[in-house]
C-alpha cells in the first residue's frame, strides 16, 4: 500500500493502481509457484527412485541364488573302500577325488590335483555318503551323480567373475578354466534349482549355506513375541482406554509407552543382555530370550494401535450394553473388544513385521553366533533371518553377496506378505460408524 502512494505522484499520466503492481509481479510469482511445485514433485520422485534403486540392486544381485551350478561326476562306488561295517565313516572325499581324476587322467602333480579337486564343493562327499547309506546296493556300481560345484565355479558360470582378468587376480586359474570349459562342452555342468538354500542351515561354504535355520529361528522368536505381546498389549490398551481414570499414574504409563516406542532398539538389547541373560541366567542365543526382548519392543506399537482401535468404537455401543444391564467388564468383553479386534490384529501384524526385521537387539543377546543346526525348540541356540543377513554380509566370499541378497529377498517377501495381510484385514473389517 505504501508503495502505491510513493509511486503515484511520479507517474502523473495514468495513476498506477495496486492491480498494476500485482500484475507486474504476477509472472515472477507464477514462476515461483511452478518451481515450488516442481521441488515437491521431485522430492517424491527422488524417494521413489531411491526405493526402486534399492529393490533393483537387491534383486539383481540376489535372483541368481535360486539356481546353483552342479557338476556331473561318474562315481564308481568302489567296494574296496566302502566296507559294510564302516559305511558312515568311509573315505567319501577320496571317492570324489578319484571320480574327478578319472575324468582328467592327464592331471599330475600335487598343486594341479588340488586345483582340480577344488572345483567340487566339499559338500559332495556328504552327498555321496547319504546316497550310500540310503541304498547300499549301489556299491560296486558306477553311477552319474550331480554334485554342487565350488562357489568360485558357481560364480564363474553365473558370470560374476571376469574371464579376461589377469590370472593372478582371478580366483579361477587358467587351467581350471580349461577344465571347466571342457566339462561344460561335455554337458557335465548345469545350473539347477538351488534346494540347499531353502533346506539347510548356515555353512562356511557359500554353496552349502542355506536360510532354513534362520527362518526357523525367526519363526520361534516371533511365536514367543506373539504369545506374549498380543494378550499383554491388548490388556494394557483395554485398561488404559476403558477403565483407567485420568490421573498422574495413568499419565506416567502413557508417557512411558510413547517414549518406549521411540527408544533405540539397541537399548532393548542392552536390557535383554543385563536382565534376561546376566540376572535371570536364561540361555544365550535362544529364541525365547529374543522373543522376550522383541516383546518389550513391540508392546508399545500394539498398545498404541489397540487403543486407537478401541477409541474408534462408538460410545453408543457401550451405552446400549450398559443400558441392558451388562457390567462394565461384560460390556468390554462382549461388545467393545470384538468390534475393535480387527484394528488390534492389524496393529499386531504390523508390530510383528517390525519385530521380524529387527536385528540390533538380537546381536546383543548373542543370536549372532555361527549356528549350523536347525533349532528344534525355544531354548536351542539359533539365529534369525536379519541376523543371518548381517552375518553373510560380513563374509568376504563373492558368493555370499549373492546369498545375502537372496536372503533379503526372502525377508522382504515375508514382510510384504505380513503387511499385505494387515491391509487386507483392515479393508475387510474396516467399519465407518
Amino acid at each position, binding site marked *: 500500500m505504501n508503495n502505491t502512494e510513493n509511486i503515484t505522484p511520479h507517474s502523473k499520466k495514468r495513476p498506477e493502481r495496486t492491480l498494476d503492481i500485482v500484475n507486474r509481479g504476477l509472472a515472477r*510469482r*507464477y514462476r*515461483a*509457484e511452478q518451481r*515450488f*511445485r516442481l521441488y*515437491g*514433485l521431485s*522430492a*517424491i520422485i527422488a*524417494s*521413489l527412485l*531411491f*526405493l526402486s534403486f*534399492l529393490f533393483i*540392486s*537387491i534383486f539383481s544381485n540376489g535372483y541368481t541364488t535360486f539356481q546353483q551350478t552342479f557338476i556331473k561326476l561318474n562315481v564308481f562306488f568302489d567296494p574296496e573302500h566302502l566296507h559294510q561295517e564302516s559305511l558312515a565313516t568311509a573315505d567319501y572325499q577320496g571317492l570324489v577325488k578319484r571320480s574327478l581324476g578319472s575324468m582328467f587322467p592327464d592331471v599330475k602333480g600335487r598343486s594341479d590335483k588340488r586345483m582340480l579337486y577344488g572345483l567340487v564343493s566339499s559338500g559332495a562327499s556328504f552327498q555321496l555318503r547319504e546316497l550310500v547309506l540310503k541304498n547300499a546296493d549301489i556299491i560296486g556300481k558306477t553311477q552319474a551323480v550331480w554334485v554342487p560345484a565350488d562357489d568360485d565355479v558357481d560364480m564363474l558360470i553365473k558370470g560374476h567373475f571376469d574371464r579376461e582378468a589377469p590370472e593372478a587376480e582371478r580366483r579361477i586359474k587358467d587351467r581350471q578354466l580349461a577344465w571347466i570349459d571342457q566339462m561344460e562342452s561335455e554337458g557335465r555342468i548345469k545350473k539347477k534349482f538351488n534346494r540347499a538354500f531353502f533346506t539347510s542351515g548356515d555353512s562356511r561354504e557359500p554353496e552349502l549355506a542355506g536360510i532354513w535355520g534362520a527362518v526357523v529361528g525367526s519363526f520361534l522368536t516371533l511365536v514367543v513375541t506373539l504369545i506374549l505381546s498380543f*494378550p*499383554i498389549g491388548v*490388556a*494394557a490398551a*483395554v*485398561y*488404559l482406554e476403558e*477403565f483407567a481414570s485420568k490421573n498422574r499414574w495413568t499419565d*506416567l*504409563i502413557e*508417557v*512411558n*509407552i*510413547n*517414549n518406549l516406542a*521411540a*527408544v*533405540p532398539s*539397541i*537399548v532393548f538389547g*542392552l*536390557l535383554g*543382555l*543385563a*536382565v534376561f541373560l546376566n540376572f*535371570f541366567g*536364561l540361555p544365550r542365543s535362544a529364541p525365547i530370550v529374543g522373543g522376550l526382548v522383541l516383546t*518389550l519392543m513391540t508392546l508399545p506399537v500394539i*498398545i498404541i494401535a489397540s487403543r486407537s482401535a478401541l477409541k474408534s468404537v462408538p460410545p453408543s455401543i457401550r451405552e446400549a450394553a450398559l443400558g441392558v444391564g451388562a*457390567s462394565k467388564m461384560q460390556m468390554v468383553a462382549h461388545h467393545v473388544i470384538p468390534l475393535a479386534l480387527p484394528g488390534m490384529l492389524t496393529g499386531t501384524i504390523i508390530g510383528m*513385521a*517390525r519385530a521380524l*526385521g*529387527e*536385528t*540390533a537387539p538380537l*546381536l546383543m543377546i548373542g543370536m549372532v553366533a555361527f549356528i549350523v543346526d536347525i533349532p528344534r525348540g525355544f531354548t536351542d541356540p539359533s539365529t534369525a533371518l*536379519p541376523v543371518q*543377513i*548381517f552375518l553373510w*554380509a560380513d563374509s568376504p566370499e563373492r558368493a555370499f*553377496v549373492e546369498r545375502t541378497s537372496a536372503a533379503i529377498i526372502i525377508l*522382504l517377501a515375508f514382510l510384504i506378505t505380513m503387511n499385505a495381510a494387515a491391509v487386507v484385514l483392515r479393508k475387510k473389517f474396516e467399519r465407518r460408524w
Partner: protein
Amino acid sequence: MSPTTLLILLLGLSALAYYVGRRRAFAVAGGGAGIKHLHSRPVYYGALTAVWCGIPALLLFGFWLMFESSIITHLVVAVVNDIKNLVSGNIVSGEVDPVMQAAADHYRSLQATSTAALAVCAIALAIIGIVAVRAKIAPTLRARNVVEKVIKYILIACSTIAIFTTIGIVLSVLYEAIRFFKIIPVTEFLFGLQWSPQMAIRADQVGSSGAFGAVPVFLGTALISAIAMVVAVPVGLMSAIYLSEYANKKFRAAAKPLIEILAGVPTVVYGFFAALTVAPFIRDTGSHLGLGVSSESALAAGLVMGIMIIPFVSSLSDDFINAVPQSLRDGAYSLGATQSETIRQVILPAALPGIVGGVLLAVSRAIGETMIVVMAAGLAANLTVNPLKTVTTVTVQIVTLLVGDQEFDSPKTLAAFALGLLLFVVTLILNVIALHVVRKYREQYE
C-alpha cells in the same frame, strides 16, 4: 517333569477347574431351572474356580523358573568352595576332576530336586485352589464381582509393564555404567579426545592404550545424523507438502504407500545396500573427482540413513500440515496469495511446532540407528567432521564391544553400557521434548 509339560498340565487343570466350578454351580442351584437363584451366571463360578486354581500355581511356576538357575548356581558354588577348602590341604591339584564331577553331579541332583519340588508344589496349589473354591460355591457367592476384580488387576498389571521396562532399562544400564565410571572418571569419558577401547592383555602390546574419551564417537554420531537429516528433512518435508497440498487423490493414494514402504524395509537391508552399492559408488565418484574418499565414509552411511528417515519425516509432516485448519488457507487465498505463498507463509509457520517435533523424533531415531552404521560406517574413532572420512558412532561401538565373548569386569565391556546410558538419556530427552511439542501443537487446533 519338564517345565513345558508342567505348564500344559497346569493349563489343563485350570480348564478342569472351570468345568468343576460350573457343574457345582448348577448343582447348588438345583439344576437348570434354579439358575435364577444364583448371584452370577454359572460360567462365573467356573471362571472363579479356574482363577484360583491357575493363577497361584502359575505365579509360583514363573517365580520358580526365574530364580531357580541363580539359586542353584549359588548353592553349587558354595558346595564347590567347601570341597575345595577341604581338599586344598592334602590333595594335589591333579585330582581336581573328581571334585568337579561331584559338583556337576550335585548340580544335576539339585536341578532334578528343584524341578520335582516345583511340580509337586504347583500341582498341589492348583488342586487346593479347586477344592477350596468348590466348597465355597453357594448361590450367594458373588462370583462375577470377584472374577471381574481379578481381571481388572490383571489388566492393570499388563499396563504397568511399560513402566517396568523403562525402570529395567535405566537400572540395567546405570548399574554397569556406574561400575565403568568407577574405573574411568566421568570427565575423561565425556571430554576425552582419544577413543581406543582395546585393553592391553600384555603390557608390551602395540596399540592398546585403552583410552575411553568418547568425544570422537559423539562427533561421529552427530556427523552421520546431520548428513541423514540434510537428506531426509528437505525431501521428506517437500514430499509431504506436495502430497497434502498439490497432488490429486489418485496420485496421493499411489505415492503415499510407496514412500511408506521405505519405512518398512528392515535396517539391515539398508546397511547391506549402503555397504555394497552406495559406499563403493561414492568412493569411485570421489576418486574420479580426485578426492580421497574412504570406503567406509560417513557420507554413505548418512545418505542411506537419510533415505530411511524420509518416510518418517514425511508422514509426520503430512499429519501436521493436514491438521492446519482450512480456514487459514482460505484466508490466504482470498488475499490473492498463490498456493506456494500460502504454504510458505501461512501453513508452514502454522505447522512449524509440529514439524519441529517430528524432526526431533527423526533425529532421535538417526542417533539410535544401529545396523546401517554397523555395516557401512567404520570402527576407527577419528576426530573429524569431514564426511568423506571414516567415523564411528555410539551404536557401532556398543555392538563391537558387546558382540562376542564378554567379561563383565573389564572396562571395555562396561564402556558399552556407559555409551548405552548416554544414548538412552539423549534420545529420552529428545523424545520427551518432541512428544511434548507435538502434543501441545495438536491441542492448539483441536
